[in-house]
């Protein structure tokens, strides 16, 4: 059978290779599931197909013809549609207006609402939402229905390839059922469907073939019937483990942080764990599993609904209502979005480093001693081996790794004992990552309590003493260094999505 869409040798690099020589065929009328860990290259691949990102090299063929979309519109005109994970709806417009946004029926510019609403009702009926009024403003819908509207806005168009990126993340079971019904209809019309998801049970239900991406390589494409879930998991993680071990030479100290029954929004459900001085606790989990939300809740950055946090073995729970409370109690959060939430990009290294310790360089009335401030900054820059011209250099000019070191220095200067790192090596090039790992290990050896959230499992296994695994907002497993394997951790990370009633 001639493939609808053929990919040959697709490569894409940003700082590091994201996709490396992908050969993949999408056949007419198949549902082709694409699975892989965070950062395996799934999203990049779908963005290339949909014309959002050009590949560095490699070719695409659409029904035998060369296909190189220059933008999303060109891809859609060729019949390739992408429904992304993030919603792209305009909240203030109606369902009908959103579905036909770029093809509103009109006469001399005047929208023909009767026709628009008729057409929209037809599309909605097809996708299993016959009772949804097309005139409803999108902002009045739940997230699940919004996702269905988003999908509906793709489905009415002439379509040869439909790419669905985690389409069921926000859907309820009946909605998933009607989505699958719709997918099967498209399938019978000969549409090729690329289905990206980490919900393996759903993939088992809907997919004909499964492809596994790992670190930018396509490691397997098999018939779904020939690939049990356990094998999928093994293929997703089965790479050579980094041999480096950053846990030597430290001993676990007293308890520093005890979290009990923490609830905060949908993504933090009944989380409990302990973290100790002199150790690194890794927190693993898939995108959206609640990792970031958990550390933010502990730090007081987002409100807590219930649960308690005990610090330094105290029997009284700590009151943390704001980041300010957390900082006073010696907790630091190094955010995932360093540029947006950590750094003051237009300011100098010095100002970034001392922003929350200024009173210690100042007289009682707040007059800062620049001499003492600069001396202290120099000391820390040297201690953490930050490469920069001077403390007055703009922070924006530093590399990601050096920026991260400056943020670490900020918290060390503040004398924080409990350091929560969210993706500490994001935006840090590979060479500098090991410096960050060594820095984390040094901090643990000095008796700090380190919690590291990361989507890179290899990274966590190199630096952590223990790894806690979150899945779908719950803590599903906790492993010590001797007990963990990549397969076990990945299985725990997926377990929360297997069925809605699963509890650890």
């Amino acid at each position, binding site marked *: 059978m001639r493939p609808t869409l053929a990919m040959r040798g697709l490569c894409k690099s940003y700082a590091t290779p994201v996709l490396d020589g992908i050969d993949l065929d999408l056949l007419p009328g198949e549902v082709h599931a694409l699975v892989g860990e965070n950062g395996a290259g799934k999203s990049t691949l779908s963005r290339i197909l949909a014309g959002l990102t050009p590949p560095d090299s490699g070719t695409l063929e659409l029904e035998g013809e060369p296909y190189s979309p220059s933008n999303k519109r060109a891809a859609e005109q060729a019949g390739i549609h992408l429904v992304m994970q993030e919603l792209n709806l305009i909240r203030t417009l109606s369902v009908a207006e959103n579905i036909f946004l770029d093809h509103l029926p009109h006469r001399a510019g005047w929208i023909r609402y009767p026709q628009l609403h008729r057409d929209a009702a037809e599309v909605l009926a097809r996708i299993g939402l016959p009772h949804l009024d097309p005139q409803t403003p999108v902002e009045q819908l739940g997230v699940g229905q919004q996702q269905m509207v988003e999908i509906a806005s793709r489905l009415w168009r002439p379509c040869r390839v439909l790419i669905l990126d985690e389409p069921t993340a926000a859907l309820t079971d009946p909605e998933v059922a009607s989505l699958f019904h719709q997918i099967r209809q498209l399938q019978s019309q000969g549409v090729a469907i690329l289905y990206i998801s980490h919900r393996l049970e759903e993939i088992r239900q809907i997919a004909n073939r499964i492809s596994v991406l790992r670190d930018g390589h396509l490691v397997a494409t098999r018939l779904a019937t020939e690939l049990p879930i356990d094998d999928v998991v093994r293929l997703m993680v089965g790479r050579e483990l980094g041999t480096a071990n950053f846990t030597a030479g430290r001993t676990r100290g007293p308890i520093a942080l005890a979290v009990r029954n923490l609830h905060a929004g949908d993504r933090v459900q009944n989380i409990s764990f302990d973290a100790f001085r002199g150790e690194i606790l890794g927190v693993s989990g898939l995108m959206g599993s609640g990792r970031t939300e958990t550390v933010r809740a502990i*730090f007081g*950055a987002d409100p807590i609904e219930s649960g308690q946090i005990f610090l330094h073995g105290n029997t009284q729970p700590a009151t943390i209502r*704001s*980041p*300010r409370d*957390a*900082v*006073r109690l010696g907790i630091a*959060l190094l*955010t995932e979005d360093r540029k*947006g*939430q*950590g*750094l*003051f*990009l*237009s*300011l100098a290294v010095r*100002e970034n480093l*001392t*922003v*929350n310790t*200024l*009173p210690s360089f*100042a007289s009682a*009335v*707040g*007059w*800062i001693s*620049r001499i003492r401030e600069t001396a202290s900054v*120099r000391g820390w*820059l*040297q201690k953490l*081996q*930050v*490469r*920069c*011209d*001077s*403390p*007055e*250099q703009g922070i924006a*000019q530093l590399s990601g790794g050096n920026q991260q070191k400056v943020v670490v220095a*900020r918290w060390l200067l*503040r004398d924080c004992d409990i350091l929560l790192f969210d993706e500490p090596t994001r935006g840090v090039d590979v060479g500098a990552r090991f410096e960050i790992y060594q820095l984390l290990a040094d901090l643990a050896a000095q008796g700090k309590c380190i919690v590291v959230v990361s989507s890179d499992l290899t990274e966590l296994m190199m630096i952590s003493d223990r790894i806690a695994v979150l899945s779908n907002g719950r803590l599903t497993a906790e492993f010590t260094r001797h007990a963990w394997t990549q397969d076990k951790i990945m299985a725990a990370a997926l377990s929360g999505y297997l069925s809605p009633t699963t509890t650890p």
Partner: protein
Amino acid sequence: MNRPAPHPVPSRSLPPASRWPREHLGTLLALAALVLVFSLATRHFFSPANFRTIANQIPSALLVATGMTYILLLGQIDLSVGSVLALSGAVVGVALSQGHWPLPAAALAGLAAGALCGAFNGLVTLRWRLPTFIVTLGTLEMARGGAHALTHSQTLYLGSAIESLADANVLGFSLPFLIAITVVLAAQLLLTRTVFGRHVIAIGTNPEAARLAGINTRPVQLAVFVSTGCLVALAALIDCSRFQAANPNAGIGLELQAIAAAVIGGTSLMGGRGSVVGTFIGVLIIAVLNSGLAAVGAKEELKRLITGAVIIAAVIADLYRHRRP
């Protein structure tokens, strides 16, 4: 040094204090050029008398623009300063002319009115996380209404009750001018040398990062709003003294002048970047432009056209200066 440092931090960095003349070199040159051009164009311009006139005109604008600079540094805006100036002036005027209060008491009442308006702006903005543009637009209307209500829309003539303030002079400089200069210097030092100032800059640069760094951002922001209200009230007092009257229509368009001065001086409307010294230079540029154009006989409409062009040119020049790596 005890241990070898593989990546030493060189000590050749400039001490921060020497940064500002360079930072303001462009605007200082523009100011000098304006003075030169007007001096060559007309003999009346370059004279001690004319400079003294300018010096006596700018204090209230300078005080308001200083407050505005802090507001802009926070990434906020205050459109109400002109009306608040009128309201504070009206309070002073009513206290003096109808209440027959002693001058210090009337002055304190005026300051309190300004501080209250600032506190109102700040509290409403922070409590409901509203855009200051909207909040201060509301205050602009309310304060103007309050000024008219207090004065029954009449200009209150105060005469000798208040003239002592503007007439006092030290070494040839009027007291208002000296007050304004003192405030500018203090505000500049507060900004660059104190914990408070650094926190203002941090909050204006990235409010979320500041919050996550553990800075208590609300008191800092509230303090800026209240101080701006006080500075505006001080400006009102000076204006009342200069005109020996409290005018409910005083200060119309003042907010735009203040923003213009700050922007010409290099303050960013996006927050986090700016300086009071820059704003001072901005106020001087506008004042010299006004006075010089008047001296060469330009009409009001031409003056406004040129002033507007200067504002836009200054922002474009600033853009280029900061785009350079």
